[in-house]
């Protein structure tokens, strides 16, 4: 979708920050940013200021499972790339500056650690990624294409590699990879120029293999200060080895019930080691570990267990911290450039980053603790925003006496009606025109004074949180256009009439919270075709017939949570995949369990369903999966619509010229704007992303313009033609004629009847809609107002406000960038534009300038969109957003 269409996302994050349970952490070499990956698969970019503040800037979406590791992926300073890997084998290469996804790939194996290294091959330097994980080799990948080049293999007792470090030896000028396997065997590979050059040849075998009795190895790090020692941290002890012959120099056990999780050298004679509960300890190494000392290696072979070297500092976490649900991630970062920070950084399950600046001169003072330099969680940074980050229907959800609005827990957008359906945590469902509510949230204007604006409708019926809403007609026209289905934590599924707001039926068949509502594929039996499929947390699946108003099948007794629902319509089978890998095949009409399989057969059955109908897959396990599917689906739909649109615009422009009754022209679905609800975690409230399809906006504007009964200005393009070159007219007319013929044929041939029906339906829906408004113009207004660079030119701003009817945004708008394969970066509301923005610019100024100068890719997209849209609007008869009511208002 990104390649062909110009689609701009705008995010309404709401007041609650997304859940960000940090699973991995990376600091960029130049200390300009911290990057964190979380258990739900998102990546957060935090800008780091020289004063060690970390305002979160953007969130990257694309991974579908927990992020296991992050690493930098290039060496040069002008571009900053990082690579991320997730538990299910996905890898992504991102540009840190604009959050673009440059490359992605998926391997069968999961990496637990990635390290970037530049190997020197002759005069060239090649970036490589060394990966280890749940496989017995070390894979060497090209850092720009993410292709596996070769692997480092163990000859002697091969096993998974738990930790690895790369050493550049000054003596031999060789790159050495030192790794410790799960069974505690130290492995050494030497990467010579020949090795790096060869590709896909014989595997590279280890140079040395030495058992060092390090079970549960957590990390291994090389002392960059002396280049003489290695620190190996295991959960129960940490050890220092000689980097030359790997002999043990010292070993320190952990205290009673805590395990070490990592460590590093902070200077030639000091190490920092941290535990799983987030405490860090700085130790001074005994002289036998220091190459500068005369006692170096004096203890080799007689190292005593339990001789604890002096502890210099203890860095504990703050006592007032909230309870954590899983161990925090700690990293030590030593910058080799200005400003030479030595930072200890910790990320925890609350989405909090804490930083300690470790001083160079440490004195023995056990009693004092190192003060934390900076600590900030995503939620705190959201709370500190002024004005607060808005959610899509915050103005309608304000609770008297409470600060927080009622959370939106499920939502669906109906493009055909331009309406957004929001299920909330109090059990009510709100129907609201999407553009109107977005204008209220984003822009300043008269509407701010009105209470209860925009007009909306509230459906009440659920006793508790609404967990899912579905508008079946949108998926398939075989359903009743009026039916809206919602499921809640009160175990019930309710069918509503979307136009009257009436509750039609309540299904109470499940014994657990409803988690998902799905639509069966097209070619099911007629009975099933009028059903929706509901999935509940008691591991049951129901087929609820909207026509018969009863449950025609309930498949329960699955032992494990349901992960995926697939269909074999031809065989009348419903295939349920559970989280333990088992697959249940149900007969839809009889409700009989056909079989239950596991293992290879289960995988084959699931795959067979995919082959038959790729569109009928519905993964439930993870919100990110759903998001990605939604994205890809959307793109397909968008592409299809695009093709249709192009044809139809031409048709409109051509036919309109001599077509008297323009009312007969087909009206197009309003998919210039798509509102997609997203969650990073199932427990989060929905946040909403508005996707603007610039091309679709323009086409709709032109279409509507052409339908306007104004003979002189039928189509801007034709008009221009006429004026520009009279000699071209005959030729153009001819072209027009032929095209008209073909298009007429095409359009009318299609399905005249269906079109007729469609039109009737639309008329009906329009008469029932909440209010009369021009959806396309509203969308364009919202879009232009968001994109305009407010504050750059005072006079222009004034014209925009008064003559063009554009509105100034309340607050900086969070834009996004869609890149390859549905990967997406969304700006957080907390992003800071410039270092000095606080000093000079007023809020209204940042509002506009914020959008520019963020990143080149985003700016390009915005400029393109503004220019093309402005050009279109200028060619129109009423090139202003000033509505009738606005015109009457006295000019100031």
């Amino acid at each position, binding site marked *: 979708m990104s390649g062909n269409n110009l689609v701009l996302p705008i995010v309404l994050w709401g007041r609650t920050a997304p859940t960000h349970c940090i699973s991995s952490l990376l600091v960029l070499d130049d200390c300009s940013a911290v990057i964190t990956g979380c258990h739900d698969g998102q990546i957060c970019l935090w800008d780091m200021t020289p004063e060690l503040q970390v305002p979160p800037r953007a969130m990257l979406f694309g991974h579908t499972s927990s992020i296991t590791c992050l690493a930098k992926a290039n060496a040069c300073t002008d571009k900053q790339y990082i690579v991320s890997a997730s538990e299910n084998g996905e890898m992504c290469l991102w540009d840190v500056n604009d959050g673009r996804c440059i490359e992605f790939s998926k391997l*069968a194996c999961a990496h637990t650690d990635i390290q970037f290294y530049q190997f020197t091959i002759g005069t060239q330097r090649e970036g490589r990624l060394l990966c280890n994980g*749940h496989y017995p080799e070390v894979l060497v990948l090209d850092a720009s294409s993410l292709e596996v080049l070769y692997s480092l293999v163990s000859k002697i007792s091969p096993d*998974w590699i738990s930790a690895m470090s790369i050493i550049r030896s000054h003596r031999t000028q060789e790159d050495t990879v030192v790794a410790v396997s799960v069974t505690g065997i130290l492995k050494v590979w030497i990467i010579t120029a020949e090795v790096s050059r060869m590709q896909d040849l014989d595997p590279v075998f280890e140079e040395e293999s030495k058992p060092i009795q390090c079970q549960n190895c957590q990390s291994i790090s090389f002392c960059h200060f002396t280049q003489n020692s290695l620190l190996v941290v295991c959960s129960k002890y940490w050890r220092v080895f000689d980097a030359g012959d790997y002999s043990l120099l010292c070993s320190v056990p952990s205290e009673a019930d805590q395990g070490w999780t990592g460590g590093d050298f902070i200077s030639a004679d000091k190490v920092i080691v941290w535990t799983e509960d987030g405490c860090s300890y700085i130790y001074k190494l005994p002289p036998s570990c220091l190459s500068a000392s005369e006692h170096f290696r004096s203890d080799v072979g007689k190292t005593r267990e339990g001789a604890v070297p002096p502890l210099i500092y203890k860095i504990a976490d703050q006592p007032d911290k909230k309870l954590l649900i899983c161990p925090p991630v700690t990293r030590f970062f030593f910058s080799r450039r200005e400003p030479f920070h030595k930072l200890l950084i910790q990320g925890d399950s609350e989405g909090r980053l804490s930083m300690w600046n470790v001083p160079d001169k440490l004195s023995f003072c056990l009693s004092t603790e190192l003060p934390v330099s900076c600590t900030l969680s995503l939620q705190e940074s959201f709370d500190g925003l002024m004005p607060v980050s808005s959610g899509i229907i915050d103005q309608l959800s304000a609770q008297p006496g409470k600060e927080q609005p009622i959370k939106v827990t499920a939502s669906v957008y109906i493009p055909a009606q331009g309406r957004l359906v929001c299920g909330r945590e109090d059990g009510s469902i709100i129907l609201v025109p999407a553009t109107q509510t977005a204008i209220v949230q984003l822009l300043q204007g008269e509407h701010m004074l009105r209470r209860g604006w925009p007009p909306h409708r509230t459906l009440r019926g659920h006793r508790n949180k609404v967990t899912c809403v579905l508008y079946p007609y949108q998926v398939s026209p075989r359903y009743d256009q009026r039916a809206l289905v919602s499921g809640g934590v009160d175990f019930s599924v309710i069918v509503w009439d979307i136009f009257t707001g009436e509750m039609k039926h309540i299904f109470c068949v499940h014994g657990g919270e409803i988690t998902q509502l799905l639509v069966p594929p097209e070619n099911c039996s007629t009975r099933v075709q009028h059903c929706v499929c509901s999935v509940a947390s008691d591991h049951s699946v129901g087929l609820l017939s909207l026509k018969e108003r009863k449950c025609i099948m309930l498949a329960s007794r699955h*032992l*494990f949570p349901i992960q995926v629902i697939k269909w074999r319509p031809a065989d009348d089978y419903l295939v349920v995949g559970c989280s333990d890998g088992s697959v249940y095949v149900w007969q839809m009409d009889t409700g009989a369990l056909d079989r239950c399989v596991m293992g*290879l057969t289960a995988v084959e059955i699931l795959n067979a369903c995919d082959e038959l109908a790729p569109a009928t897959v519905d993964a439930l396990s993870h919100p990110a999966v759903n998001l990605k599917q939604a994205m890809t689906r959307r793109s397909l739909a968008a592409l299809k619509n695009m093709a249709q649109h192009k044809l139809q615009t031409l048709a409109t422009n051509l036919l309109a010229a001599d077509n008297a009754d323009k009312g007969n022209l087909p009206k197009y679905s309003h998919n210039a704007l798509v509102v997609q609800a997203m969650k990073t975690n199932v427990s989060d409230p929905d946040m909403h992303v508005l996707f603007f399809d610039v091309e679709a906006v323009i086409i709709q504007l032109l279409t509507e313009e052409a339908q306007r009964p104004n003979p002189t200005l039928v189509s801007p393009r034709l008009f221009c033609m006429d004026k520009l070159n009279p000699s071209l007219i005959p030729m153009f007319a001819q072209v027009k004629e032929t095209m008209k013929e073909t298009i007429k044929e095409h359009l009318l041939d299609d399905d005249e009847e269906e079109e007729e029906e469609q039109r009737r339906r639309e008329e009906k829906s329009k008469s029932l809609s909440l209010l009369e408004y021009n959806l396309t113009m509203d969308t364009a207004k919202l879009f232009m107002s968001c994109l305009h660079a407010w504050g750059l030119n005072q006079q222009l701003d004034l014209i925009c406000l008064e003559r063009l009817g554009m509105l100034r945004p309340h607050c900086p708008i969070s834009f996004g960038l869609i890149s390859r394969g549905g990967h997406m970066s969304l700006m957080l509301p907390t992003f800071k534009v410039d270092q000095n923005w606080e000093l000079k610019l007023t809020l209204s100024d940042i509002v506009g300038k914020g959008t520019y100068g963020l990143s080149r890719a985003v700016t390009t997209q915005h400029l393109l969109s503004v220019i093309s849209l402005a050009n279109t609007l200028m060619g129109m008869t009423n090139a202003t957003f000033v509505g009738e009511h606005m015109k009457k208002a006295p000019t100031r």
Partner: protein
Amino acid sequence: MSSASQVERAVLEEEFNWLLREEVHSVLKQLQDVLKEASRRFAMPSPGLESQLKQENFILGSEGVLTLQGEALTQADINLKMAKSSQVLHFQFRDDKHWKLQQIQDARNHVNQALHLLNCRDDSYHFKTGAEVNKLMDAVMLQLTRARNRLTTPASLTLPSSPPSADAGDVMVNFYINLSKLCLTVYQLHVLPPNTTKNFKPAGSSVLHNPGAMFELNNNRFEVSHVHKVECVLPWLSDTLVFFTISLQPASSSKTR
């Protein structure tokens, strides 16, 4: 009304605390025991003592004997009757070459990781929130499911990436685990003339390729002419699989609570 609900709330809270304090630990203990038992089945080679590892012999159908030591097949003595010719194909491993069953190693490592997670949270650890327990259970279950999936779903291979044959040029061999069975597939190959364009279609990846599958290797094209498949049951593996299933159940049920 409100006082009643308050009492109710207090009772529920008390019960929840009990759950966190007592019940969770008993479930964890139970899990740990089951996993220890499972992990014991995977004979773990302690470094330096590989040779002392127990050797197990398995009779592979009527065709021969295999020796499994830990995760590696160390000896084989297999006779296969070739199709067409009544020739009998005899296999043996070279003394210095072992066939490592990566599936067993992976499963073992996943189990050990799950055990490690559980060991970190023994009786002395006090769980403070339900979310914490959920997170731990998620992590443990992920490892267990992985371990089981490694055994139940053998990796599918494209023919050229299949491990190379023992010695004979026109035979390819693959050993793998499917559920608790150790399987051996032998592909008899037939070299295709290099210039034939006769619908050469390289086969995709699959666990078991059928006769007629074609592939290219070192610029030579081959066609699979015959496939032999023999298997035998590894009793300790079936035990482990049972353990996995047993241990997944309390894990998931404690999660749902």
